[in-house]
């Protein structure tokens, strides 16, 4: 039987020894991966346009009432992306970067601007991505779709309209 005391001793002594002699291979990459919160904030105008197109009447009609919704979903998207591996964060960063460049997004099917975008033009753009036979375009659609809709409906305030009562109360 081994003793707890001995184990802890090995742990602490070993820690010091390892720190001195063990050289691990340099941990790879992850430095270039952007933070989700930063990405969501930089690309706020694009995300607002996509939210408006994807969510439609799920958002309040009144512009003033929409504002906190945009802020909330933007924050939730940032938090979601922050909990993804660096490679995925980088992919999302690249995708958002592409959508920020007018010539690049024109190739994907939208040549308008993001601030004050026409929701129906953005909707047509998203449908084009979704219905395309090109895998990369479809991936773009689903990435935006999942980020926006998942983040929107993670908020308890959106549940009453869906008929979902939320989790039960436990005694």
């Amino acid at each position, binding site marked *: 039987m081994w003793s707890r005391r001995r184990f*802890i001793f090995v742990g602490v002594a070993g820690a010091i020894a390892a720190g001195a002699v063990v050289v691990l291979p340099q941990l790879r990459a992850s430095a270039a991966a952007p933070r989700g919160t930063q990405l969501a904030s930089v690309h706020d105008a694009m995300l607002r346009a996509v939210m408006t197109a994807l969510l439609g009447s799920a958002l309040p009609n009144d512009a003033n009432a929409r504002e906190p919704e945009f802020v909330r979903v933007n924050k939730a998207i940032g938090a979601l992306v922050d909990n*993804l591996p660096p490679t995925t964060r980088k992919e999302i960063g690249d995708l958002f970067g592409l959508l920020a460049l007018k010539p690049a997004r024109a190739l994907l099917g939208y040549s308008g601007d993001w601030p004050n975008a026409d929701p129906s033009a953005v909707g047509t753009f998203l449908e084009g991505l979704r219905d395309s036979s090109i895998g990369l375009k479809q991936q773009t659609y689903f990435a935006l779709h999942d980020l926006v809709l998942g983040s929107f409906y993670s908020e308890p305030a959106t549940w009453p309209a869906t008929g979902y009562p939320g989790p039960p109360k436990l005694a």
Partner: protein
Amino acid sequence: MIADPIREGLAKGWMHIDASTLGQDATLEADVCIIGTGAGGGIAADVLSDTGLKVVMIEEGMLRSSTDFRMLESEAYPTLYQESASRKTADKAINILQGRTVGGSTTVNWTTSFRTPSPTLKFWRERFGLTELTDEHMAGWFQRAEKLTNISDWAVPPNENNAVLERGGQKIGIKVERIRRNVKGCYNLGYCGMGCPTNAKQSMLVTAIPAALNRGAVLVSRARADRLEVKKGRVTAVECVSMQGTGYDVGRVKVRVTAKHFVVAGGAINSPALLMRSGVPDPYSLLGKRTFLHPSLVSGADMGSKVEGWSGAPQTTYSDHFLTTQPIDGAMGFKLEVPPIHPVVYAISVNGMTEHHRARITNMPNTQVTIALCRDGFHPESSGGQVKLRADGSPQLDYSLNSFFFDAAKRALLAMAEIQFAAGAKEVFPVDERISGFRTWTEAKSGLEALALRAYSTRVMSAHVMGGCTMAKEEKDGVVNVYGRHHQVENLSVLDGSVFPTSIGANPQLSIYGLAWRNAARLAGDMRRA
């Protein structure tokens, strides 16, 4: 107030190290180091510690327990699942649900418990030389696991979501049966997928892992096994990196574990990836190949009355009709089950956008969902996917959906629509972006038959990742032998779902428990004699 056995155990003095909080590097020594704490690692820790061996468990995820399980998707997915429940295949056509927490997928699964089906074991005996794996031989191991995790018949009537599958199946004359569950004193809440808040689910988190910790085993959470150090055909140590916060960024602290024997149980995808990063010999280029997913199709239905698929035991009925009525190595068969319905996962899974999407989600209470899990890996045209490493060493599963799969997908979507209409659906919407919905079975039949299913447009999901470290008698056919021991590296075992030579054709938790138990018991005996 519900007691939290994990917090109580920690207060009592269990040895748990959260590597994300370590101020300096650490070295541990053990008889056996187990990497991963899911279905395979949990059982291995219990069985090996029970024979007096010193066990250290390494887990990349966090140690979370009932007090933390607040039944919220926004908390559960980022903290309990791989890649926030949005892990994807390389081309992003399949979303994969896999656990990443102490207890692994057993902490978040839907409690569905099946023994490995006989035809699957028969196929392994015939094609992979696993001649010992008969139903009779495995029965004893399954019984042990069933006792530990309290797998038993579930006497409560199915919720309406599951009742639809039962009713519709009976109407069209196919057999629908009840699912056994690993629960004790279940409140029938419906939130198994977010971690059981009442500890009713007898997952590894509340059974095998506490048993090992009570015997003095050490648990290191928030540590990712980066590589095994292999020298002269033996593993000498595993080098781990600490993880920061709740996410995926690697911290500065390193944890090194030396041991006599190493058990890899990181689950399919992560287990083969660890062996790849470590440069473990792979003379027949088998590592990471034959990775299976039970790629699954989804069919929604508006029942016109309350279903409330979020409430009640999530999976209680199933049909194997489309698995058992055709040869295992012929056209791909599929198992029918029902998933729980919660807002985030439903919002992401249902097709359409804007007003169409809104109409679907505001009808969530009346919505029933059926899923078809395709049995991959039994036919030359279903050889599974391949795990590869990205430049940063992280794993990625390349799994292509071919015409052989889409043939099964078409049959599956047709079968589900027929069942849903038979059960009284007002509208059925097989989840494909090009289908807005069908009002009658005739309409669904002609609509589906006319549609060429394809990746992305047709939604495909997976909650069962298997294979990648194939178990086979001969070295040329497998990464590990019939006891999960690595064919080339003496003191290395793989004891998780990654050893399955095909998919299971059923939810895999009990298959993993049974096989891991058998192989861990064998390992304990080998170590005693050594």
